[in-house]
């Protein structure tokens, strides 16, 4: 039943984030059901019946308050577990960046995504860079850094299959990273409202095998070369 709603986990940190989600589900799920069971149980057991008077319980004796303090101590323990599990995951996703194999530039604007990929020289900022709109091409099992910026308002670069999200802020370049672990084509979303076209700036990420990626780069490089050549020819 839930199969269509499953989002694949295709980055090296996706399963870590899913792990935090599962841990939270188990720990808070337990308390959720305990509390609901108490609520419903009390409602049924202590419903009004003729001749029964309610008890007088102030909740100021130790024997009474321990029904609150002991669960609370356990909840704090759960919180500590969650924080301990969460810290390293956050660090891995956002603080520690492994050395990149490639760098791409991600530029957000009202209402489109522009991606700048390195060309055959594997370097960004050279004339053979490949610029696309709405299409990010990456190679599987390679560490990528992305340099995220915005031309106008806030946007947010979100790749659900990577469990990756980062706001883009005009005036800043924010560097993040990912490493894909599987191939395919998936949605890139803008997850910060950015004006009337917020829902109209979709993009796709193409995660390719080394062969596919090399083929794409060389195809685009030739197109680029051809267009530059024809441009030059036109100028002459």
């Amino acid at each position, binding site marked *: 039943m839930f199969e269509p*709603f499953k989002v694949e986990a295709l980055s090296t940190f996706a399963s870590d984030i899913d792990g935090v989600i599962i841990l939270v589900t188990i720990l808070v799920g337990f308390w959720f059901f305990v509390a609901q069971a108490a609520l419903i149980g009390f409602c049924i057991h202590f419903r009004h019946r003729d001749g029964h*008077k*309610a*008890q007088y319980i102030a909740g100021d004796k130790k024997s009474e308050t321990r029904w609150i303090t002991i669960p609370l101590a356990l909840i704090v323990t759960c*919180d500590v577990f969650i924080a301990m599990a969460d810290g390293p995951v956050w660090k891995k996703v956002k603080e520690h960046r492994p050395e990149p194999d490639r760098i791409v530039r991600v530029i957000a604007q009202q209402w489109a995504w522009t991606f700048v990929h390195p060309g055959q020289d594997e370097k960004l900022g050279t004339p053979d860079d490949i610029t696309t709109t709405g299409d990010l091409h990456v190679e599987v099992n390679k560490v990528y850094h992305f340099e995220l910026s915005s031309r106008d308002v806030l946007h947010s670069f979100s790749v659900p299959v990577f469990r990756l999200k980062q706001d883009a*802020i005009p005036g800043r370049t*924010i560097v993040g990273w990912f490493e894909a672990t599987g191939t395919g084509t998936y949605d890139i*979303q803008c997850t*910060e409202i950015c*004006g009337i076209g917020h829902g109209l700036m979709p993009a796709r990420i193409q995660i390719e095998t080394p062969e596919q990626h090399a083929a794409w780069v060389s195809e685009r490089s030739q197109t680029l070369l051809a267009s530059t050549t024809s441009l030059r020819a036109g100028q002459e």
Partner: protein
Amino acid sequence: MAESAPATHDDHHEPSGLIKYIWSTDHKIIGMQYLFTGMFMALVGGFFAYAFRMQLAFPGVDIPGWGTMTPPDYNALVTNHGTIMIFWVAMPVLIAAFGNFLIPLMIGCDDMVFPRLNRLSYQVFLLSTIILLASFFVPGGAFGGAWTAYPPLSAQSTYNLTPWGAPLWLLAVALEFAAFLMGGINFITTTMNSRAPGMKMHDIPLVVWMIVLASIIFMLSVGPLFAGAIMLFFDQVLGTGFFDPNRGGDPVLWQHMFWFFGHPEVYVVLLPAMGIVAEIITVFARKKFFAYTPVLYTTFAAGVASFTVWAHHQFIAGIDPRMAHIFTVTTLLISVPIAVIVFCSIATLYGGSIRFKTPMLWALSFIFEFLLGGVTGIYLGAAGADVYFHDSYFVLAHFHYTFFPIAIIGTFAAITYWFPKMFGRHMNETLGKIHFVGTIIPFNLIFIPLFILGLAGQHRRIYSFSLFPDLAKPEFQDLRVFATVSLLVMLAFQFVFLFNFFSSMIKGRKAEKNPYDANTLEWTTESPPPHGNWSELPSVYRGPYEYSVPGRADDFWPQNEPS
């Protein structure tokens, strides 16, 4: 329906007509004014939700009552739905309406200490309401940059395309804050200075404490946002660059100012709702509130802690990632005081003699539904998990599971409970229960599908998902349709409430002074209370929750009854 409200209930109170009613300084009338304005705005906010949910379920359809929806329409409706439900429904109803009506009646005095400031508070609030509604009829239309109004989008009309809508929205919100500051001053001062003889700090009913604490939290948190609002207004209309990175400003600064207020604001509306629930469950379980004093001090602690969690809204907003650890810890810890209050409310039921009247059903369902809202907040407080959930429908479903219990369930609990005192008549119990079932079940059927969509990566504030292949699958659309149909059912059942509310006001069964055998002072005067509340002001001899005291024939012991 509610549009005709002021005229309908006017004749109950002031014989000298509408003008007298509008200029009244009586706290009960001002409370009613806030209540009716809030109810009217709830209809507006509900209508907006209907319109944009129709677009999501049936994209491009000609929506009855609205027409075809464009992306700017959609953004304006989503933005103003949120703005209205928080600032023009939850706050005016829970704090202003019930704070005004209940505080003098529950602490045993004849009126607020600053009655004219109180009247000014409502008038400024009314002005803010008119400005907000007017923003839909200006060139460019209403503001559509989300209720959080992040710049640069909100700051520059070249980006938001609403040159009039954005400043009017901001002006309305700022005026609304000013109105609530005036109201809050009254609540705090009145409670501290005008209590009945004999009413000590620990004899104050919890709902009064909660409204006072909410007012204090509001006053302490709103300053930075008020300053931010003025800076943003200057950016919009004078062309300053406080939040413009091209001129040395910083857009993230606004986020700090907004959420430094925005998170405490959650507690500003939560606490009064919890106070309302506390009053109702003690009366209908015939029980003393479990651990009154610890709960009170825990609430103080929650209020203080609420100032330390704001950046959990900004984990991925470009703040220094190392800060996230601190805010994860504070956010997880704030679950503790809130758990205390919820657990003590549940513990109060233990050993009770529970009567399931309509107000009690609302109060119990508040706890039931709020628990899900509370636990789903833990996912978002954990920074790692928040990377995935941020700005998804999971967040949306989470906060609706907190705000719906607060603003809607809490309000229905309060209205059905205090209706006899407010209008001197009883509401119809059968209609009340039909309305209860017809609201609670669809509510869950709206938002559980949205949790699933959020888990599946559906992001917020999107006019149409047709451009996102991963989200445009038919199964996703089925859930969207399911949620929208549930909303339609829930909205339809609100007419049962409106009918019950207005017909009971006119021809409901007459209410005696104390129909529920309750202890608190408002039940010791006439229903409805006369101007001045009591012919002779009461004295207090005990706390508010002395129910089922051993050795007494009655299972209640009013606060004003000499021992």
